[in-house]
């Protein structure tokens, strides 16, 4: 496929993800003011940080009077999952020059990761898959900035917008990504263990339960995959 075709395909494949991110961006734009951010700072955080869950947690913490250090530490722990995404995609982008790797990393969200990983897993030998990555990243970024702006401008007009439960959109998006991946026992076990540990550790400080759960799920997945393979080897 040509560069433009890859770029456009990346944009197009992100469309369902944009629907899921919209409510979250709008609610962030609406509520950031109450946490003490000026309109420019609200928009600036979306432009510069571009991390939905971290931005949302930051304004909740700010509203509760947390210090800079606490917000930064929580941002780090919540966003550590991106290091895992970075590791997963590294084999596919390592041939690219820095001027590509830096912006692609900036646009590496949960949603872009899911879509892009899928594209790289396809076996065609297109040399322009990074253009697909770029398209997916730009779609998510543009959508996020637009929704922040919409929340900023119109959020005040909607009474109690924080009570609408717009955050459910993120859960629906992640469910839509994960469920089709649960195709074998190790994947199902990884999900169950991650869920159990996340729930058991939900009151650890700085959202540390998330990383504990992720690692537990990964370890169980690998252990089961190895055992499953060993059993197969014995049968054949």
């Amino acid at each position, binding site marked *: 496929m040509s560069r433009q075709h890859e770029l456009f395909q990346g944009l197009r494949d992100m469309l*369902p*993800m944009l*629907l*899921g991110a919209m*409510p979250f961006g709008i609610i962030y734009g609406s509520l950031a003011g109450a946490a003490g951010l*000026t309109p420019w*700072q609200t928009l600036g955080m979306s432009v*510069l*940080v571009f991390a939905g869950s*971290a931005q949302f947690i*930051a304004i909740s913490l700010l509203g509760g009077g947390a210090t*800079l250090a606490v917000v*930064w530490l929580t*941002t*780090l722990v919540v*966003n*550590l999952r*991106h*290091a*895992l*995404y970075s*590791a997963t*995609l*590294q084999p596919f982008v*390592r041939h*690219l020059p820095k001027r590509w*790797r*830096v912006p692609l*990393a*900036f646009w*590496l969200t949960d949603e872009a990761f*899911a879509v892009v990983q899928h594209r790289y897993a396809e076996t065609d030998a297109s040399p322009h898959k990074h253009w697909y990555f770029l398209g997916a990243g730009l779609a998510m970024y543009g959508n996020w900035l637009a929704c922040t702006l919409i929340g900023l401008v119109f959020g005040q007009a909607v*009474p109690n917008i924080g009570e609408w*439960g717009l955050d*459910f959109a993120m*859960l*629906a998006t*992640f*469910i*839509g990504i*994960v469920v*089709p991946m649960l195709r074998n026992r*190790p*994947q199902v076990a*990884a*999900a169950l*263990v*991650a*869920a159990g540990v*996340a*729930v058991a550790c*939900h*009151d650890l400080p700085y959202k540390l*339960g*998330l990383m504990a759960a*992720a690692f537990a*799920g990964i370890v169980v*997945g*690998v252990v089961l*995959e190895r055992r499953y393979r060993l059993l197969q080897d014995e049968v054949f």
Partner: protein
Amino acid sequence: MENWILILGMLAITFATRYSLFAFPDLRFPPLVRQGLHYVPTAVLTAIVVPGMLLPDGKTWALSPDNAYLLAGLITIAIAAVTRHLLATIGGGMLAFFLLRLWLGQMPI
């Protein structure tokens, strides 16, 4: 001013996590790590979703029939399992959630 420092710090931290492994193009992972990476999306996203359904406010258990996050979450999982279609899952899940909240009288209107 302090808010801008906060934002710049968050930018540095977030970018550092995303760029972390892209910064080392010569690095090759051992097979065990590569195998583990196959489980990253499943483990990470499930660890966000399930507490979001069972403890919607992040603190208190909500194992009750009036917890729209839990009910709509289960409906969304069912839609995803049957259709395996992302747009149908997100759209259908959100629709189910808001209908449930309306029905349960939880919408602030």
